[in-house]
């Protein structure tokens, strides 16, 4: 009787050991197959909201075109995160060949560090692939009656705002709110009222309850029911709507159109890859690609007609661009640093 039990126990133990060994050993046989059977691979790092347009339209579109012209398969691998995060990853040595960024400042950082050696502004349309204005997203029925940026400063509004430290969208949003107040005061009195703009920015930031790392993270947070309002790219609101999310898009009277530069990370491009990388860069400004961007709710940089065709892109009364502040080289130190960081952020604490 007893020997029978020991025998059973021994057998069970044997079975158990082989099972657990099998469990642990099984993965050793399959180490990382990237499925590289011929063809070429382009590595693209993009800021968060580029994902759908690139993966669903731009990559397949270019792959078809290249295959037809050169008979060669092109594959893309990509990673998406906040623009500043993407830039830092590349600066740390990630092997990206192309980066599509939310802000010019990041393209310049890559250039100064020697990763981009060509002049990216020489590309078509100053290197800017597409645009999208900054809008406010609110809950259905707009319970707090938000019509414009200053309404976000009202008592009780809980605002989700991407983090300007890691997200390009977060910086655009600050410029949108600040510039919008300058622009409106300018049309009213003929003088841009900086004090009023700072005051509004302060009031809005008083209501910020969370600063997610990228525009996309901010949207996910908002979608999961957090906060009453979100300042983000118009495209995000339209994507949410097309996914059936109950959200209301408020287009402010005056807002900024963000410009998104595409750069080649020259240091990481092997000579053999040059032609295909260059072809891809130029493809971004082709009518086909621009049409695809508009289909995915961006605004085209090459053609107003394409934008007009998309009826969901609402007109903006007083739009402006980064040029209103004299370009990024002035906007970043003067507004993000001197106004936002030194005056708004400091008084928040």
């Amino acid at each position, binding site marked *: 009787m007893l020997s029978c039990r020991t025998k059973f126990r021994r057998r069970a133990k044997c079975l158990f050991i082989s099972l657990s060994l099998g469990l642990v*050993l099984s993965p*050793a046989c399959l180490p990382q197959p990237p499925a590289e059977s011929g063809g070429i691979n382009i590595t693209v790092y993009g800021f968060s909201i580029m994902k759908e347009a690139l993966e669903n339209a731009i990559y397949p579109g270019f792959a078809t075109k290249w295959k037809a012209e050169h008979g060669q398969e092109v594959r893309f691998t990509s990673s998406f*995160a906040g623009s500043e995060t993407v830039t830092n*990853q590349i600066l740390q*040595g990630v092997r990206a060949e192309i980066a599509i960024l939310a802000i010019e400042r990041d393209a310049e950082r890559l250039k100064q560090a020697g990763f981009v050696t060509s002049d990216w502004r020489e590309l078509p349309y100053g290197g800017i692939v597409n645009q999208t204005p900054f809008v406010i997203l609110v809950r259905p029925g707009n319970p707090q009656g938000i019509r414009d940026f200053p309404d976000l400063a009202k008592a009780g509004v809980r605002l989700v705002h991407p983090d300007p430290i890691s997200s390009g969208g977060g910086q655009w949003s600050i410029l949108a709110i600040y510039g919008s107040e300058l622009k409106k005061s300018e049309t009213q009195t003929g003088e841009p009222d900086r004090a009023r703009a700072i005051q509004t920015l302060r009031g809005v930031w008083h209501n910020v309850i969370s600063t997610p790392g990228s525009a996309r993270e901010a949207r996910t947070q908002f979608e999961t029911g957090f906060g009453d309002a979100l300042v983000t790219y118009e495209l995000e609101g339209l994507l949410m709507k097309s996914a059936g999310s109950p959200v209301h898009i408020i287009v402010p009277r005056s807002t900024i159109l963000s410009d998104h530069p595409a750069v080649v990370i020259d240091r990481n491009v092997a000579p053999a890859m040059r032609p295909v990388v260059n072809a891809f860069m130029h493809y971004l400004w082709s009518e086909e690609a621009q049409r695809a961007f508009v289909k995915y709710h961006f605004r085209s940089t090459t053609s107003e007609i394409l934008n007009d065709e998309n009826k969901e892109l609402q007109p903006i009364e007083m739009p402006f661009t980064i040029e209103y502040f004299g370009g990024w080289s002035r906007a970043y130190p003067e507004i993000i640093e001197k106004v936002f960081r030194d005056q708004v952020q400091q008084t928040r604490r």
Partner: protein
Amino acid sequence: MSTVISTMRHVRGFDFARPLSIGMLIFMMLPLVFLPLASIFLFGTNKGLASFWAALSAPEAIFALKLSLATSFWATVFNVIFGLFAAYVLSRHNFWGRNALIVTISLPTAIPTAVAGFALLLLWGPYGTLGRFLSPHGIQIMFTGGAIILANIFVTFPLAFGVIKPVFDTMSRSLEEASATMGATRIQTFWHVTLPSLRGAIVSGALLTFARAVGEFGSTILVSGNLAGRTQTAPLYIFAKFNEGQIEAANAIAIVLALFSFLIFSVLFVARDWFDVD
């Protein structure tokens, strides 16, 4: 036997403390552990099993799971061998600086995993202390599967060691001495006498290490480059999908990882019992 007596001692009639304390334990665990886990399962399957399966069979999801298993496997192999060796050296020999070494081995437990990640970047990155001498030769460790293994090794470093060392410490040396007097070499003694009594500890150490490595996130996101289908592990995939708002896809993989760790810890539980009886 002794357990039976100790529970009997306090009982006259029905012991209310028993159901009460068990109920309280479960009640306390409900909002802390049970419900969060349950919500993953509820959310992951509320659109039907078909969409759960579709999320799970996406090529990038499968790749992420495979990559996680493979990198964790190699980290486990390394750390178990290392843990065995370190435990042997540190329990058999007493030398100056021994305690400092023990503390250093245990250190990764308390270091934030993000720090582990950027420490590796600062060392092996293309512009890091050592990495900068390697990158001109075309050798890049960071942003590859190798980097993920390194990060896993760092983060799970003390686990296997921590399980194996106490067994070494309490092991009677008389068997080893007997083996030596019978003319066995050091290696023979280790293989036939020392190792068999460590089986239980090795298996638990390996499973603990493996489980911890599969779930590793903080260091991996820094050193891997997070490329879908290339260097994206399962936890990174979950994070990316959640950020993209594809919560179903994130959930599907989360369920797999939850079941997986359930399996590992069940095995661990059974293993401990069996090997202790021996």
